[in-house]
């Protein structure tokens, strides 16, 4: 089917380019590392305080790191006017959107998985039992962020001051994802039973579904003449 | 041009009238008389509002039935109050409140019939000023902008009359 082939080609292209330069991933990783260090300097934390704040710190670091990756996602298409060729390609625009979202999602999720051990190390977290649920939470929240983020990355790439406008437009809309991700992560880290925070995971799922569908339809209007 | 300014003069006039009426209403019905003024120059028998605190250990009578006597303090000044009115849970010892009643200068007793809540009228005034001024200024600026645009379009030599409701008419 041309639809799924298009998705596959876009993901393939993004992954290969990234693998050759490692530009996006390395800048995301370094930025996140600095964020973690700054946080640990600014709050000199003991174990209890860490447990209260760590969920928020994790998601602030992940979100800002994600915005760096999302910003790069479409600026790379500006080289040699590649955005133009995507615009006039006969491939379905929704498939291009899904491909880009999948690539962004993979970048963000792998950075998160690489970073999380550092959080555990620096903030002395106890995570053995919670790893499974944390992975689910990371998966869903990152999906939500990349679904909306890819749409806004495409929207801001052709305007002035795009580096500023992406977070300005994206962060207010990401409030539900942030709240749900922080609450669920806090629940998982403090060892609460799953039913205590399962509603946040439901909220994340609902958000993911709604915004993937909405962005899928709206993306066509961005790459429109 | 003149039409716009007469309209806005009218609006400003009505707003000012409302403001004056509100201020008068406040002066007559809502402002409290300082207790010192009440004691030094007691007004003739019309009802006044005073603000103060119920002195502890002086409250007597049946508050639930709407009858009580207590000492009422406002800074250095104090006076004796006889309350007779609707039953209220508002009268408690050490409670600050507003009393509405008459000063009986013969018996040196304040006969209160009503109580009221303490209100900071500054907040109400601020809320109204912010919204009325904000909205009014915005609408005025917009109407003026339309006028200026009409003028500019007319003055640009390429003016052509636009025969629709959004364009120039008059």
């Amino acid at each position, binding site marked *: 089917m041309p639809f799924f*082939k298009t998705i596959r080609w876009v993901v393939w292209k993004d992954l290969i*380019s990234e693998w*050759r330069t490692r530009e996006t991933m390395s800048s995301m990783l370094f930025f996140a590392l600095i964020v973690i260090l700054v946080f640990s300097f600014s709050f000199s934390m003991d174990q209890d305080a860490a447990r209260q704040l760590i969920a928020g710190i994790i998601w602030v670091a992940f979100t800002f790191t994600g915005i760096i990756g999302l910003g790069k996602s479409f600026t790379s298409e500006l080289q040699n*006017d*590649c955005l133009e060729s*995507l615009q*006039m*390609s006969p*491939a379905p625009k929704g498939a291009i959107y899904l491909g880009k979202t999948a690539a962004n999602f993979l970048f963000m999720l792998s950075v998160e998985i690489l970073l999380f051990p550092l959080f555990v190390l620096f903030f002395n977290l106890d995570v053995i039992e919670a790893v499974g649920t944390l992975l689910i939470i990371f998966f869903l929240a990152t999906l939500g962020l990349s679904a909306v983020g890819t749409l806004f990355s495409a929207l801001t790439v052709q305007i002035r001051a795009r580096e500023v406008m992406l977070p300005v437009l994206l962060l207010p809309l990401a409030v539900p994802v942030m709240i749900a991700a922080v609450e669920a992560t806090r629940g998982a880290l403090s060892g609460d039973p799953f039913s205590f925070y399962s509603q946040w995971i439901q909220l994340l799922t609902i958000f993911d579904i709604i915004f993937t569908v909405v962005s899928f339809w709206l993306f066509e209007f961005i790459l429109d003449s | 041009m003149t039409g716009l300014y007469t309209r806005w003069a009218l609006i400003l006039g009505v707003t000012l009238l409302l403001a004056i009426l509100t201020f008068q209403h406040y002066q007559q019905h809502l402002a409290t008389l300082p207790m010192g003024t009440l004691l030094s120059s007691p007004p003739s028998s019309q009802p006044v509002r005073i603000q103060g605190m119920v002195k502890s250990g002086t409250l007597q009578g049946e508050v639930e039935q709407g009858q009580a006597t207590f000492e009422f303090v406002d800074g250095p000044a104090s006076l004796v109050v006889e309350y007779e009115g609707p039953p209220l849970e508002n009268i408690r010892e050490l409670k600050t409140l507003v009393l509405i009643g008459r000063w009986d200068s013969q018996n040196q007793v304040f006969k209160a019939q009503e109580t009221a809540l303490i209100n900071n009228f500054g907040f109400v005034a601020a809320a109204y000023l912010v919204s009325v001024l904000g909205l009014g200024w915005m609408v005025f600026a917009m109407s003026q902008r339309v006028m200026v645009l009409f003028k500019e379009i007319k003055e640009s030599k390429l003016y052509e009359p636009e025969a629709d409701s959004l364009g120039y008419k008059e």
Partner: protein
Amino acid sequence: MIAIQVNSLSKAYGFYRIFEDLSFDVHPGECFALFGPNGAGKTTLLRILATLQAPSHGQFTIFGQDGVAQKDTVREIIMLIAHGSHLYDELSATENLQFALGLRGQAPSPPQIKRALDRTGIGAFADLKIRQFSAGMKKRLDFAKTILAQPQLLLLDEPYNALDHAGVAITNQLIQETLDRAGTVFMTTHDRDKATQIATRGGILKGGHLHLLSSEQLTTDAIF
């Protein structure tokens, strides 16, 4: 069927009008060269035909398909070679071809790709990243793309820029091949000498109006 049929087409940016009321036809097998001074709207017209911009008024059809309403069908049969090479810097020449054709729903075999690259004279650089390509090599790679895609209508924006003598010869040869398989070429250029070698018809866009030139007029000096 008419390859390009333009019917009283106008384009304005905001209220600044680029051109107005253009009407012309291009038939299959023709190579139409559009001349004109800078800022006359040549590239804008080309981009409208490439469905990258919407016209302000008027319609155009490409092989009978409406250029605004049936954009997706039109996009399957046209191809544009523009100033930007539409190539990804980190991919090799072969991978770029695979990606570009993959989005068009085609899957060329490695020998086909090799042949196309050889034809455009860059077969030796098949596995080199585009980052190391010169502007002329990128342009040749774009032509290799059209060899594989075989579009019915080829749109060229200043095709002779950044090309050496051999490149110009290959370009004209590829245009000729496109014409031979009953494809149509529409190009904008200001390089009259090179264009008139291959163009069968032309036009000058100037002051918002188009003046059509027959093939005889193309070679006479008086009109320019």
